[in-house]
């Protein structure tokens, strides 16, 4: 990550604009144990109270790092019920990185966020239909499968 992804200009700007970045060496056994980390790189998004929002293990190239952590930031807003901001970030990830590995998760959480904001279940079914059409092999498509039962 330090050789390829973090020096990338877009990644650098994205991280500094969107997060408070902190790097901990594997020699810090206390934090490695606290967060149950046993492989690097491991990148965890936390809220200000230390609650885990999202975790990625393994290398991500710049074109996957940005949408992956856009979705993570959207989930951070989602967890505090700030749905317009969450949906704006999910939408941005889908618009700018439609073919990334994170796109299916963005579709899933966009649907759930819209449902939680409006209490209308139709966005859940729409998310399932989009996932089935665009990402038929994704785990997020499987997780959304019950939403196919929601009436149109």
């Amino acid at each position, binding site marked *: 990550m*330090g050789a390829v992804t973090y020096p990338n200009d877009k990644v650098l700007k994205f991280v500094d604009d969107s997060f*408070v970045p*902190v790097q901990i060496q594997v020699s810090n056994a206390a934090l490695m144990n606290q967060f149950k980390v046993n492989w690097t790189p491991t990148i965890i*998004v936390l809220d200000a109270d230390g609650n885990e929002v999202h975790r990625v293990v393994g290398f991500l190239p710049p074109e996957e790092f940005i949408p992956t952590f856009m979705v993570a930031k959207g989930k951070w807003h989602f967890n505090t019920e700030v749905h317009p901001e969450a949906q704006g970030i999910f939408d941005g990830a889908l618009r700018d990185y439609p073919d990334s590995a994170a796109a299916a998760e963005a579709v899933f959480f966009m649907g759930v966020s819209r449902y939680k904001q409006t209490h209308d279940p139709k966005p859940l079914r729409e998310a399932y239909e989009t996932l089935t059409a665009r990402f038929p092999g994704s785990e997020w498509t499987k997780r959304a499968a019950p939403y196919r039962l929601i009436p149109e």
Partner: protein
Amino acid sequence: MARNISWLDDLAKAKDRARNTKKPVLLDFFNPQ
């Protein structure tokens, strides 16, 4: 000269800053070797 991400090295400080800036923490565990 290339810029670098402004990494902190203290999680407690990062959480304080996250609270003040209303941003999430990006915690990267890395092996410098």
